[in-house]
């Protein structure tokens, strides 16, 4: 029970902290309750949000929904409280009784109040200017423009989430599921040894290259600031191309246009 309240409280704070929208919601519900004459509208705009607030905080329903939805996403139950309907409706009830000009002035003022009650979504905090039609980081596009299609690649973790969004014909050695290997200190699994080696600032080619070859990684893409122990050509790879941020290496056996994509059953 204590766990439930802890999760519910944390999620609730995460959903409403840093703004006045929740107090505004409660005031709106009260205002609609007092002013709305249509009982069914009152039920929908006061009763329904209050019901879902109750469902969210009540341990019996809450624990059930935590099990059904999952503890990590329990906060999504709060989506059922329609802030963008209840608050505007309450404000409109307030505006209803005003004459034309008074109404428009009050509307502008109340829009200002609503804006001040929250924090802007369209801000630099979340967004950055897009430089390409894919809306992906430009350094990813630059690498993709250099890589051929239909190849298997092992790429820096900085590129891993985006490469296939730019060119889905490329198969990758690692996806996000491999991030769990971070922190492993000792392992005998080749897949993990290879992953851990490429995370190092100084990569030992004697470790990396044989494993990468064995896994069929025709192309390797690492940050430019990495240094290497050994000579690439001695281990069957050579430098293929580079961008400001990344160096691309290719298997010496790779032939232009060859399909080296990987498929494991």
């Amino acid at each position, binding site marked *: 029970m204590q766990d439930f309240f802890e999760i519910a409280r944390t999620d609730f704070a995460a*959903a409403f902290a840093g703004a006045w*929208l929740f107090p505004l919601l409660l005031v709106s519900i009260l205002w609609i309750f007092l002013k709305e004459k249509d009982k069914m509208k009152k039920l929908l705009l006061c009763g*329904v949000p209050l019901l879902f607030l109750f469902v969210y905080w009540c341990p019996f329903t809450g624990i059930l929904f935590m099990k059904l939805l999952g503890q990590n996403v329990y906060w999504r139950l709060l989506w059922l409280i329609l802030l963008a309907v209840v608050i505007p409706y309450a*404000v409109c009830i307030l505006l209803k009784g005003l004459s034309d000009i008074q109404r428009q002035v009050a509307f502008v003022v109340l829009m200002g109040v*609503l804006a001040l*009650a*929250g924090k802007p979504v369209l801000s630099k905090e979340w967004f950055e200017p897009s430089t390409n039609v894919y*809306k992906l980081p430009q350094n990813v596009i630059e690498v993709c423009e250099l890589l051929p299609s239909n190849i298997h690649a092992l790429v820096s973790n900085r590129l891993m*989430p985006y490469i296939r969004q730019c060119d889905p014909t490329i198969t990758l*050695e690692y996806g996000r599921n491999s991030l769990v290997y971070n922190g492993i200190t000792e392992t005998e699994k080749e897949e993990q040894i290879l992953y851990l080696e490429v995370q190092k600032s100084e990569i030992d080619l004697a470790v990396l290259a044989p494993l990468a070859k064995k896994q069929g990684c025709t192309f390797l893409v690492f940050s430019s600031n990495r240094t290497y122990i050994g000579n690439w050509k001695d281990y069957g790879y050579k430098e293929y191309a580079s961008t400001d941020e990344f160096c691309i290496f290719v298997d010496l056996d790779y032939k232009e246009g060859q399909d080296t994509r990987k498929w494991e059953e």
Partner: protein
Amino acid sequence: MVMGLFFGGTFFSGHVVCKITKVRAEGVLFPIVVGAMSWWALMEILLLPMTMLHGTFEGFVVLYSVVLVGIFIGGLLGWKGIARELKIVSRRAKEYLTFGHVVAFLLILYQLVYLHHHMYLEWDDTYYVNLANEAVNSNWIYWVYPETGAFADFDKRYVLSLWPIFYAWLSKIFGVLPTIMAHTILPWVIIPLSYMVYGLIGGKLFARDKELQGMFLAMAVLLHLFMSGEHTAGLTFLSITPWVGKGVLATVLIPMLFYHMLRMIKREKKGEWILLGLTALGGCLLSSMGIMLTPVFVGGTMLLFSVYRKKVRYLTHGMLACLPCLMLGVYYLYLTH
């Protein structure tokens, strides 16, 4: 072009659905949102068995497109009724030129233009957007692990709600990479669609006061642009990730369910329940959360209706409308637990 296909196609499809359900396809917005819900419901019906039976993506594209073209032609056949409705709309168009509507329009335009020139990097796109990319690239629906493309995968959590296949379908038709469709084009479809639903809600709440309808819409838009808490709160999805199924659920589908409830207050026709059922089924496509939250919203609201009006049929009819969600919900729990 994508906007033209989506809004034009859903408009005519909505008219067909309204005709079948004997609900008046009033105005322009109502048939569009009904059409959109029907498209998604139809997609869920076709996509689920095709995914399970290892159908090809191209096969799905052909089948889905042919059925939609059929519905579209059905809509065109009813052109007389549509023309009559459009005539009424055009006669009343001036009534919607209110201060509130202008403010709402400017805010929506600002949101769309800002999003067009900016990007938000969504960590989960590496799964969902690549799921669409993989469908177009490999011709498989869902059976390839999208993050690497290098092995077969079947994540039970998402199989019932393959929303990315919707924009993969659009991508295939327009010959655009799904990444571009999701990040750059889809916001121009989903954001207006969401505000159409709010426009309809405003229309029902203030049926006789057009100015208040506009003001209601402007405030609804504003609340999507000013957030509380973390960036993953429901309303902010519309700006941050309008291409993600969960975002569409929070900002289009749940408000649409509310709109159905508003309609239920006034008229309780069989057709209205069918439309509610279509919306509920459409919600299943968007996200597994849609499978869960739709019956909770409808059930909770209908419970209140039933208690207040002392008629149990609100609850039973509501649950019947959510039957596909309930069935898929049980199957989801079976798959994941």
